[in-house]
């Protein structure tokens, strides 16, 4: 039975799709069966980052509308055979992205895979809420920058209120993935430090992905960074993240909540 993981952020351009590709590939490299679903209907990009843009025949909307079977739409990766991609539709109306249709697709995949990774679109509209709807685990991608942190805070509030788990009185397991982090600049006080971001958002840290040219290089070549540049610092960070997700878990003690998060607890609506 698969775990459903949503990669989300609120803000665009922080690295959701890059992280989806890297985490999906890393999980598959460790032998897990992985299906990645691109929820960004109209602006799909996971296919491009994965280097599969010319192999798209059917997409998520085709499957929801019954034009294609899920097996026909899934693209199997040529490098790691347990890695699969369900692309978003590029042209069709996103009104076809229905709650019921998404539930059917995810239920169908749950039997056959170990991990279903939902790549959320930016924003807080339907694509984003449907991407997180069925999640067991959430990876909140955040840059050490004020607008990204504010949007992540909003998304964490939604994970605590708008997901199936939340509605059933359970919790989505939330992890912070801090991307594009430049430790030297943080040291100089030019950007927020990890500790600051953790205190403000008060969810446990999954990994810090350092700012690196390797990430862009891999995107250019159509490879997740864990495949395209496996020994680079960002790839190693993603591989560590995946080990944590698989429950070599979080030995790291959860940080004491700071004064700020004690005073202003986020509320589930």
């Amino acid at each position, binding site marked *: 039975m698969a775990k459903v993981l949503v990669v989300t952020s609120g803000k665009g351009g922080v690295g959701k799709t890059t992280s989806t590709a890297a985490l999906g590939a890393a999980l598959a490299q460790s032998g897990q069966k992985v299906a990645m679903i691109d929820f960004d209907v109209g602006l799909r990009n996971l296919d491009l980052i994965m280097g599969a843009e010319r192999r798209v025949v059917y997409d998520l909307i085709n499957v929801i509308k019954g034009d294609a079977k899920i097996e026909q739409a899934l693209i199997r990766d040529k490098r790691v055979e347990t890695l699969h991609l369900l692309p978003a539709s590029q042209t069709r109306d996103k009104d076809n992205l229905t709650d019921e249709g998404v539930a059917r697709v995810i239920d169908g995949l749950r039997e056959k895979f170990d991990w279903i990774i939902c790549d959320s679109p930016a924003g807080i509209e339907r694509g984003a809420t449907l991407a997180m709807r069925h999640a067991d685990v959430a990876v909140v991608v955040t840059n050490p*920058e*004020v607008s990204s*942190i*504010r949007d992540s*805070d*909003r998304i964490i*509030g939604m994970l605590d*209120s708008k997901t199936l788990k939340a509605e059933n009185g359970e919790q989505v397991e939330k992890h912070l993935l801090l991307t594009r982090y430049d430790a030297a600049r*943080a040291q*100089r*006080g*030019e*950007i*927020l*430090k990890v500790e*600051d971001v953790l205190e*403000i958002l008060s969810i446990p840290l999954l990994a810090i992905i350092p700012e690196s040219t390797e990430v862009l290089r891999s995107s250019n070549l159509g490879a997740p960074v864990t495949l395209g540049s496996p020994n680079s610092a960002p790839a190693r960070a993603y591989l560590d993240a995946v080990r944590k997700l698989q429950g070599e878990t979080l030995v790291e003690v959860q940080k004491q909540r700071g004064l*700020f998060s004690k*005073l*202003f*607890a*986020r*509320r*589930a*609506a």
Partner: protein
Amino acid sequence: MSLFSFFKRNTTSAPVARERLQVLLAHERTIVGGGESDLVAILREEIMAVIAKHLAVPQDKVQIKMDRGASVSTLEVDIEIPATLAGLRPAA
């Protein structure tokens, strides 16, 4: 450029970012999350109902505000009673 302005330019901005975010999110978590704004709406409705039993006060003359401070929070209820009702006769 003087030596002084050279040092001033290097003042770190991250602490400012941190402080601004803390103030902003403290505010947004109470409003966007629906927690406190719901509470204020419920209080407003029930307080209005109680007042309406005894006084015909227009809705817009009742102001209800909640302020969250670090150690004390306050609920402020401000009811403006029209001069014609000064005798406090029952509304109905």
